[in-house]
């Protein structure tokens, strides 16, 4: 890799962390888009995954836990010429920010969302996440997780998300390819990336994912929503990776919103005459 997107920010991840592989995939994918640094914005929330943007030399918005999506939406609305990519963890996007996930899939905002899904809260040291397997005992849920796991891909397909895929941190090339396609997709694109947490998740390890996952065969019709939904429910026996569902018939939010477009908001002026016209409309005069 040429390293054009490298930064000199110190790495805060554990040795062997899946985030390192996801970072490689993100940089590869961004290079393949052919975009210049200034045309890309990486948006994240909080957590180990959300530190990723600091390692990529592009525009960065590292906001609040769970709140990457509202910021990403507004950046797109303010300047639709920017390529906006969200990278954050499963706790961030599926837990704290779940409401924003639901409503931005509904909006069909043209952003690509990469969720580093390690089924655990790593930075706060080992609590179960929304995607933790039932029965798994982490701190704060010591007798094992009772709640059923949040099914991100099934939920996205149910909500009509136009690009729904699953990547595997360990397979950088495969995941980078999914990322390139997600970024190219016109509309909301979700890539859930299976990511081992080498410190806190001793169940869903590199070895476990290697054994459980299989690549979705090329004859899968990704436009078949019912078949895609069935695929999204596979987990106990084996886990499909690749593009589960895609539809291109729905225009993105930015194209439908009447105010969004050229010029970007920062370049729009406020002519005094236009202000006077606005006030004149409120002036009460007798005909």
């Amino acid at each position: 890799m040429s390293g054009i997107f490298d930064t000199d920010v110190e790495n805060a991840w554990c040795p062997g962390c899946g985030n390192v592989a996801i970072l490689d995939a993100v940089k590869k994918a961004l290079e393949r888009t052919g975009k210049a640094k200034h045309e890309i914005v990486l948006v994240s929330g909080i957590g180990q995954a959300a530190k990723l943007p600091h390692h990529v030399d592009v525009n960065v918005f590292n906001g609040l836990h769970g709140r990457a999506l509202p910021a990403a939406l507004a950046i797109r609305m303010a300047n639709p010429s920017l390529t906006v990519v969200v990278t954050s963890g499963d706790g961030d996007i599926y837990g704290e920010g779940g409401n924003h996930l639901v409503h931005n899939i509904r909006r069909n905002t043209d952003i690509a969302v990469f969720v580093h899904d390690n089924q655990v809260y790593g930075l706060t040291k080992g609590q179960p996440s929304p995607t933790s397997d039932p029965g798994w005992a982490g701190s704060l849920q010591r007798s094992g997780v009772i709640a059923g796991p949040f099914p991100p891909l099934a939920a996205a397909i149910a909500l009509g998300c136009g690009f729904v895929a699953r990547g595997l941190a360990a397979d950088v090339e495969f995941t980078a390819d999914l990322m390139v396609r997600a970024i190219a997709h016109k509309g909301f694109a979700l890539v859930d990336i299976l990511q081992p947490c080498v410190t806190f998740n001793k169940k869903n390890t590199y070895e476990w994912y290697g054994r459980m996952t299989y690549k979705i065969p090329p004859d899968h019709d990704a436009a078949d929503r019912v078949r895609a939904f069935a695929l999204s429910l596979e987990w106990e026996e084996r886990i499909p990776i690749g593009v589960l569902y895609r539809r291109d018939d729905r225009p993105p939010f930015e194209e439908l919103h009447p105010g969004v477009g050229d010029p970007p908001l920062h370049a729009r002026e406020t002519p005094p005459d236009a202000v006077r016209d606005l006030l004149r409309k409120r002036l009460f005069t007798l005909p």
Partner: protein
Amino acid sequence: MGIDVNIRVTGGAGQGVHTAGGLLCRLAVAAGHHFHATQDYMSRIRGGRNAYTVRIREIPVRAGRPQADIVLSLDPANLPRTLVSLSPTGIVVCDLPAGGAGSADPRVIAAPLKDLAVSAGSPILANIVGAGIVARALGIPPETVDRVLALEFKGDFLDKNRAAARLGGEWAVPRVPSGYSLPEAAFHPRLILAGNEALALGAVAGGCKFAAGYPMTPGSGILLGLSADGPPLGLVFEQAEDEIAALNMAIGASYAGARAMVATSGGGFALMAEALSLAGILETPVVVAMGMRPGPATGMPTRTGQEDLAFVLSAGHGEFPRLVLSPGSVEEAYALAHHAMEMSEAYQVPCILLTDQYLADTVVDADPGDFPALPVNRRIVHGSDVPRDAKGRYLRYAITGDGVSPMAVPGEPGITVVADSDEHTEDGHLTEDHTVRIAMVEKRTRKGEALEMETLPPLLAGPPDGEVLLIGFGSTKGVIAEAREILSVEGVATAAVHLRQVAPFPARAVSEILDRYRTALTVENNRTGQLARLIRAETGREVSGTIGRFDGLPFTPGEVAERVKERL
């Protein structure tokens, strides 16, 4: 002081109370007079008891009063309540069918509003029939009523409305006394605006290009104004899934270079507190319009209060500078919204516009000259004006003398903008270096000090020293001014100071003013005297007392005057 007629339209939600009240406001202006209108409504879609009160004078009016001279009662069931606040010499025009049982009270005039409305073409026009009766009681010529109606309605519906108003006017003679006739006056074009509308217009005039919000009374009116008046000037509006999203959206848009705002009320603002803190550390300009209503929690959703002063001053974890402005009139709502946009960007701080339901829903006629198109000074830097490190990378948080770092926006070749909610280095990347931490805290603090240098001074009215000083912030401005007039007539000289900015607090100016009066009383719509506490904290001076009101209704001038006299 000439005429002073207080008209109240009452009825259930859905009966056209607002339409009839609004029509009477315009008729007053058309007749060359001035008005102040307030709304008192219940938290429901249909039914209940709503009131729209229009006070008409020959001079601009900036406060209401409780006793009505003329009541237009669209719902007879409300009559007993209506009579409680009726002047002894007042009249009630009440919708009672001809031949039906009337009221024993001689002030009640039974008027067949619905019957006349049906004759005009539709029973829903009962409110317009009633407005026609009131217009006749005010001596407003039918031709004027016709002209004003033509501004609001078109075609067949205009004809029906005109017929309804005319039937009402004809019915009124000679059944309704003419003691409330307005003197003749020359017509002047006026702006007719509610506080919420003026605030939204000021923000749009201040270059606001992005707004988001989740509906909540009384902030919704600002969102309505922004979504209606903003788009012609390039504003984009988005209804958010919740208030948390709304402020995070506005901050995202601001990062991308748009002047951005949200509007809400106390409960929604509570949800925004974390994002307010985000704006503090990201140093993204953003404006939050916060319309207060009584709490705690859901409280009284459609009523007024000033209970959230202490909350907005401290909301958000951590220490960061903020600007809090508290407009006291529709003119100030417009001017301060523009000022908020300018200052928020100049110092890259969050700015809160603190209003309340009373100001939000107060409608007045205003001098168009008080609503200028002021310049919008954008401060985005480009190219060679962008501070960079030795490797040529943009330093979003460059350490500067006044703490304000030149702000570039993403999208410009050769620049990447890095903004981080963690403590960060000058180039925006997260750090745990304590030396950098100190430098960044000091930088943000210096911005606050620079902001403080531009604090809007409090507005003092009345003698520069003496016995009594009344102190208020926000919506109490007009009420206190009129209370002073009442006291003056009764031989009690008072001064008043209006705070249109509460953070940074104008401590020196307020201290100097306080020292010149024997008795200083805060007037505030809360129970615990939050403004008095703020003054003590900021100036070390104790006020003599607080005139508080916390029933959900605004102060009235007569009430404030009485309560001042009790303290003397």
